[in-house]
């Protein structure tokens, strides 16, 4: 009957987003998670590199695990753990899953520019195929 739009309690600016949208905290947490994953893996690699060659498996693990770089890597991973749980709470797995694969790209960049490992054509093509495959796995079946 009343043609005038009823004024609701919506006083916050920019609150017109539909309630089902993924909250911005989820995107932020996802970005933080990818950065922590990249930093953590890079630190672990630096830690594993510091081990002297020719040791047994257990000696290699204990020496690599105790290096300062590895400790920094654990810190990143320990931080990433609650962050990723926070992502899973706020975001459907069908979105979080392929987005998490973006770490393939950031770790390739860290591998080339930080660790100076060098990249081959087949390696980059392989990462491309993996990213595409991750997208397909999520599929249309998700609600």
């Amino acid at each position, binding site marked *: 009957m009343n043609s005038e739009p009823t004024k609701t309690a919506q006083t916050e600016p920019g609150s017109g987003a539909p309630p089902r949208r993924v909250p911005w905290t989820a995107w932020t947490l996802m970005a933080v998670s990818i950065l922590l994953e990249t930093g953590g*893996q890079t630190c*672990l690699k630096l830690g594993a590199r510091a081990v002297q060659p020719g040791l047994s498996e257990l000696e290699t693990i204990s020496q690599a*695990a105790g290096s300062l770089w590895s400790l920094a890597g654990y810190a990143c991973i320990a931080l990433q753990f609650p962050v990723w*749980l926070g992502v899973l709470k706020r975001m459907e797995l069908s979105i979080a899953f392929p987005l998490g694969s973006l770490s393939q790209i950031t770790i390739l960049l860290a591998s080339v520019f930080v660790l100076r*490992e060098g990249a081959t054509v*087949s390696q980059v093509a*392989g990462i491309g195929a*993996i990213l595409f*495959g*991750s997208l397909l796995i999520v599929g249309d079946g998700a609600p």
Partner: protein
Amino acid sequence: MTRVLPLILICLTCVTLGQICFRAGARSPSSSGESAGEDDGLLATAMRPLILLGVVFFAVHLATWMLVLNRVDLGKAYPLMSLDYVMVTLGSATILGERVQRRRWLGVACIVVGAVLIGGN
């Protein structure tokens, strides 16, 4: 690269089992009966039994992963961990008996092709 493939298989198994624990634990509704989307504190979530079991799997994975990193480039070893998705899909199809869409099998095939491109060298 072929030398570390058995180690990578151990990592993949631990990550797969760990992730299943994490996902099941993170999504289970809180004991207080609040809505599942409600944030009942990260510490409370982290102390759930399934999450703790996931941490154990993760520790074994980490020790094995240090061996892998000691022997091959991060840029080559890391993408191979995507085979995790393949294992989960195969597991849900065979063990759980879930129907897997053709599109997902195509995705699995792409990941396998990608892994062979990287690991085959």
